[in-house]
C-alpha cells in the first residue's frame, strides 16, 4: 500500500524523462509511399528534366541553393516582428529609413503592448498607423491588416478583405501572407495554387537550415494537454531562470566542455526559452573548442559559413569542420562535402571529394549523409544521374526525420520526377517544411510571453500563427480563449471581445485544428454543444462532432457517444450501440478502464433491471459523480493531502491490528495457545 504512491511518482517521472529526448527529435512522421508512387521505367529521351537547356533541369534545381543562404533571417522574412521581440539581435538597422517602416514598426509595437494590456484606445491608434503604412503600399502592413480583417479584431470580420490584403502583401514579397494564403487554398482543396506558394516558402525555409546536421527541432510547443495546462513541458522553458539551465551554466563555468557546448547550442537556436544570441553562442563554443569538444567545432564551422555573429569566412569554416571530423564527428563530413560542392573555402569545386565525404557520413549512420547523397544522385552532380537510387536515399533520410529530405520528396511529388505526380502529397510535405521557416520564431515569442503571464500577447501571437496554418498555434489560441475567458484580452470587432465573439473564434480555431488532425479539438466542439458552453445546447450537433472525433480515434468521444446512446440524447436510445462504443473506447485507451467498467455496469443494470429503483439511482450519478471526481482530484490527489491521507490510513491500520491482537490475546491469556500470526 505504502509503496504504491512513490512508485507511481517514479514511474511518472521516468515516463516524462523518456519523453523529453523525443521532443528534441523531429516528430515521427511515417511516410507511406507505395510502389505505385514510384515512377517505373527508364527516363524517356524527351523527358524535359534530362534536357540541360530545359528550365526544370538539374542546374536550375540547385538545392544546395546559395542565393538565400547569405541572407539573414530578417531579409528572408521581411516585416517580421523580430525587432520588437528580439531587440538585441544583430539586425540591419538601415531598414528604418523610410517613413512607412517607422509607421509600421511603431504600429506593431503599440499593437503588441495593447494586446498585453487590453488597451482598446492604444490598439485603435496602432491600427491607424498600420493602415497609413498600408496605404503607402507597405506589404508587411497589408499583411497585418489581412490578419485583423480575417479574425475580426478592431475591424469587421470580412474574409474578402482579408484575402485581398494578403494577396497584395504576398505579391509585395511578404512571406507570412504567402503562408496565410497557401493555408487558405489548402483548406479549400485548391492544390494547384497552394503547392506553388508552399514550394517557394519551403525553399526559403530550407535555406535557413543548418548545412551539416538537422536543426534541433524548434517545434511550436503545445500549451495544454487535453484541457489542462501542460505544466511539465512548460517548466522546461523558463530560460535563464530554469534550475536545470543554471546547473548547466555552473558546470560550464567550471570547465565542463559538454556543458559549454550545450549552452552555446541553446543560445544559438534560442532553445529552452532563451533568447537567440549569436554572440554568446560564439563565445561559449570558442571556450568549448579549447577543450577539444568536437561538436562545438562543427558548429563553429557552421557559424563561419553563415556569418552568424561573425564575418563570413569559408576557409575558417572548412578548418573547423575538418578538425571536428578528425575527432570522429561524422556529421561534420556533411558540412565539408557541402563546401566542396559549392567551391567555398577551397580552390575549386570538387565533386568527387564531396561524394567521398557524404559517403563517410552515410556509412556512419549520419542521416545528413544519406540526404546529401540522394541530392547528388538526383541532380547528377559528380555522379551519373540515378533517380531511383536518389529516391531510396532521400526516403531513408525522410524516415529518419530529416526536414530537407521532406523538401526533396515534396519537389519530386510536385514535378513528378522519380515519384508519381501528387499535388496533395506535395503540398502536405512542403507545408511541413515551410512551417519551420524563420517565421516560426513567433512561437518562441508567444511561449515567452505566456510564461511571463502575458496571456494577451501570447493569444495575439498564437492567433497570428494560427492564421498561417500552424495546428499547434490554433489549438493553443483556442485553449487560451476557453481557459482564460475575459482575461485573455481578446480583441473583438469594436473593442473587447463579447462572449459570443470569443466563443465563435474559439470554435473556428478548434475546427481548423481538428481538420488538421487534432482529434481533441473535435471533442471540445462536441463538449461545447453538449454542455451549452457559449452556444445553445444542441445534442445532435454534439453527436456529429463526437462522430468526427471518433473517426480520428479519440477514445473520450467514443465514450461520450456510448453515453448518449444509453440515455437517448441526440442519438437514438440503443443499448447495443452504447455497449459497442464503450468497448471501442476501452480498446483505444486502456486508461479508460475504470469509467468504462462503471458505464458497462450501469448498462447492465439498465438492461436487466429496467423497471426497478436502480435505474433512477444511476441516472442521478451524472450530477453526483463529477462533484465527487473534482473533490477527489482537488482534495485527495493533492500531493500533500494524499501523503497525509496515506500515512493516516496506515496509522489506522496499525492501531486496528494492534487492538485486534490485544483482544485475541486477553481472553485466551489463561490457555496455552500457539502465537497467533496476525494476518
Amino acid at each position, binding site marked *: *500500500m505504502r509503496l*504504491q504512491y512513490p512508485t*507511481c511518482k517514479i514511474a*511518472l517521472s521516468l*515516463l*516524462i524523462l523518456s*519523453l523529453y529526448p523525443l521532443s528534441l527529435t523531429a516528430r515521427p512522421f511515417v511516410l*507511406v509511399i507505395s510502389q505505385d508512387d514510384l515512377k517505373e521505367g527508364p527516363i524517356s529521351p524527351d523527358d524535359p528534366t534530362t534536357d540541360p537547356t530545359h528550365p526544370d533541369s538539374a542546374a536550375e534545381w540547385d538545392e544546395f541553393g546559395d542565393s538565400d543562404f547569405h541572407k539573414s533571417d530578417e531579409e528572408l522574412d521581411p516585416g517580421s516582428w523580430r525587432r520588437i521581440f528580439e531587440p538585441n539581435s544583430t539586425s540591419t538597422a538601415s531598414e528604418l529609413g523610410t517613413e512607412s517602416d517607422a509607421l509600421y514598426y511603431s504600429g506593431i509595437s503599440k499593437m503588441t503592448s495593447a494586446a498585453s494590456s487590453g488597451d482598446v484606445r492604444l490598439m485603435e491608434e496602432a491600427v491607424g498607423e498600420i493602415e497609413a503604412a*498600408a*496605404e503607402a*503600399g507597405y*506589404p508587411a502592413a*497589408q499583411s497585418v491588416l489581412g490578419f485583423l480583417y480575417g479574425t475580426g479584431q478592431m475591424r469587421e*470580420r470580412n*474574409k*474578402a*478583405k482579408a484575402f*485581398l*490584403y494578403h494577396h*497584395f502583401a504576398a*505579391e*509585395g*514579397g511578404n512571406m507570412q501572407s504567402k503562408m496565410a494564403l497557401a493555408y487558405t487554398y489548402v*483548406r*479549400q482543396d*485548391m492544390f494547384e495554387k497552394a503547392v506553388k506558394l508552399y514550394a517557394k516558402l519551403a525553399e526559403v525555409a530550407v535555406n535557413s537550415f543548418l548545412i551539416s546536421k538537422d536543426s534541433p527541432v524548434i517545434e511550436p510547443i503545445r500549451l495544454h*494537454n487535453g484541457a489542462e495546462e501542460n505544466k511539465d513541458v512548460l517548466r522546461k522553458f523558463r530560460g535563464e531562470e530554469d534550475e536545470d539551465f543554471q546547473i548547466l551554466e555552473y558546470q560550464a563555468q567550471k570547465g565542463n566542455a559538454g556543458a559549454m557546448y550545450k549552452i552555446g547550442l541553446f543560445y544559438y537556436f534560442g532553445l529552452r526559452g532563451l533568447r537567440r544570441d549569436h554572440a554568446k553562442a560564439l563565445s561559449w563554443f570558442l571556450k568549448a573548442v579549447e577543450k577539444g569538444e568536437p561538436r562545438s567545432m562543427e558548429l563553429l564551422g557552421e557559424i563561419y559559413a553563415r556569418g552568424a555573429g561573425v564575418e563570413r569566412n569559408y576557409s575558417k569554416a572548412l578548418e573547423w569542420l575538418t578538425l571536428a571530423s578528425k575527432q570522429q564527428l561524422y556529421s561534420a563530413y556533411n558540412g565539408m562535402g557541402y563546401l566542396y560542392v559549392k567551391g567555398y573555402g577551397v580552390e575549386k569545386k570538387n565533386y568527387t571529394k564531396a561524394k567521398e565525404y557524404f559517403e563517410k557520413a552515410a556509412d556512419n549512420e549520419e542521416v545528413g549523409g544519406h540526404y546529401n547523397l540522394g541530392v547528388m544522385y538526383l541532380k547528377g552532380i559528380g555522379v551519373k544521374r540515378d533517380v531511383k537510387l536518389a529516391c531510396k536515399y532521400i526516403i531513408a533520410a525522410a524516415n529518419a526525420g530529416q526536414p530537407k529530405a521532406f523538401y526533396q520528396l515534396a519537389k519530386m511529388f510536385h514535378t513528378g520526377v522519380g515519384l508519381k505526380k501528387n499535388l496533395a502529397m506535395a503540398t502536405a510535405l512542403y507545408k511541413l517544411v515551410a512551417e519551420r521557416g524563420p517565421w516560426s520564431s513567433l512561437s518562441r515569442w508567444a511561449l515567452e510571453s505566456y510564461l511571463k503571464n502575458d496571456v494577451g500577447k501570447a493569444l495575439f501571437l498564437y492567433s497570428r500563427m494560427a492564421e498561417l496554418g500552424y495546428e499547434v498555434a490554433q489549438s493553443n489560441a483556442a485553449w487560451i480563449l476557453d481557459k482564460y475567458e475575459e482575461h485573455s484580452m481578446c480583441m473583438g470587432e469594436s473593442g473587447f471581445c463579447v462572449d459570443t465573439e470569443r466563443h465563435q473564434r474559439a*470554435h473556428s480555431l478548434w*475546427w481548423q485544428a481538428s*481538420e488538421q*488532425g*487534432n*482529434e481533441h479539438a473535435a471533442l471540445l*466542439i*462536441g463538449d461545447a*454543444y453538449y454542455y451549452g458552453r457559449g452556444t445553445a445546447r*444542441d445534442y*445532435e*450537433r*454534439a453527436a*456529429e*462532432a463526437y*462522430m*468526427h472525433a471518433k473517426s480520428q*480515434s479519440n477514445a473520450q468521444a467514443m465514450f461520450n457517444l456510448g453515453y448518449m446512446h444509453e440515455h437517448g440524447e441526440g*442519438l*437514438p*436510445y*440503443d443499448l*447495443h*450501440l452504447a455497449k459497442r462504443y464503450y468497448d471501442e473506447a476501452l480498446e483505444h*485507451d486502456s*486508461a*479508460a478502464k*475504470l469509467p468504462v467498467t462503471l458505464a458497462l455496469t450501469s448498462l447492465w443494470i439498465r438492461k436487466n433491471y429496467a423497471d426497478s429503483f436502480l435505474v433512477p439511482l444511476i441516472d442521478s450519478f451524472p450530477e453526483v459523480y463529477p462533484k465527487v471526481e473534482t473533490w*477527489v*482530484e482537488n482534495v485527495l*490527489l493533492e500531493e500533500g493531502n494524499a501523503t497525509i491521507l496515506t500515512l493516516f*490510513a496506515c496509522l489506522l*491500520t496499525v492501531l486496528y491490528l494492534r487492538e485486534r491482537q490485544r483482544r485475541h490475546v486477553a481472553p485466551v491469556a489463561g490457555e496455552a495457545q500457539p502465537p497467533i500470526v496476525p494476518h
Partner: protein
Amino acid sequence: MRLLLLLPLILISYSLFSHVLADQIFPAHLGGSFGRSSREPKFNIEFHPEDSPFHPDEDQESVVMPQKNGQKFLCFFPKVEKAKSGMPVIQQNTSSMIVETEKRVKLKTPDELLEVLKDRCFIRQEGWWSYEFCYQKKLRQLHLEDDKLVQEFVLGEYDEEAIAAYNQNRSDISTLKDPRSKDASQRYHAHQYTNGTICDLTNMPRETEVRFVCSEPRAMISSITELSTCKYALTVQCPTLCKHQLFQEERPVSHIINCNALPKDYKETREGEE
C-alpha cells in the same frame, strides 16, 4: 478489513494513472463525415487593365489597394448577404422555397438529378468490411480476402414504397445538423433500403437510409454510420445534385473580387469610397 482500506487507495491510484501523460496521437488526417473542404467562400481576384475596367454596381464596397511598386488598384468586393451572425444563412422556410422554385422552368427533382447514378455501383472499404452500393438495387456489407467473398450481409434493398411513405411526411429534402457552426446544416435527399439480412440483436431485417448530398468532385460513398442497432445511414456524394437550388448551399461559393488598375496620378477621393 484490510481490503476495505485498500479499495479506496486502489481507486485513487487508478485515477492517478489516468492522468499519466496521454500519448498524443495525431494520425494522418482523416476525412470525417463532413469532409475536409471548408464551407467558407472561395475568393478569386481578377485584375482589369485601365482601358477595360470593371463597372461596379451601385452599392458595391470598394477599397484602394496600392502595390509595392506604387501602382494602385481600386478593388470592388462582391455582395454577400449577411445575417446577424455574420454567416450567409437562408432564413426562408424550405417549403416556401420549393413553391417559389417550382415556378421556374426546367427544374428537376432530386430523383431526376440522381438518374446519372443509374446502374452504377460504388464500393468503399472501412477496415475489415467493404460496402458495395448499387443505385436503386442493393447495399451489401462484405468481407473480402484475396478478392474472394468470405462474408456477406445485405443491408437493404431499394424499396419504393418505403420512400414514398417517408416523403409523404417530409419534403424531398431533409437536413442534418453540421457542427461546424450553430447555423450550418447539411441537406440531403433520402432513399430507404429495407429488407436486408435479419439482425440477430433486434430480430428484424437490416435497413439503411441512403443519403445523397451535393459535393464535388465525383460521385462516391463518403461515409457509413450506424444510427441504431442494424439501422444504417450511407452517405453518397453526387455532384449533379448541386444543380438543384436548395442543395447549392452546400457548395462553397466562389466570389470574384474585381480590381481596376488606376492611373499613376490617381488622387484619392474620400467621398463614397472607403
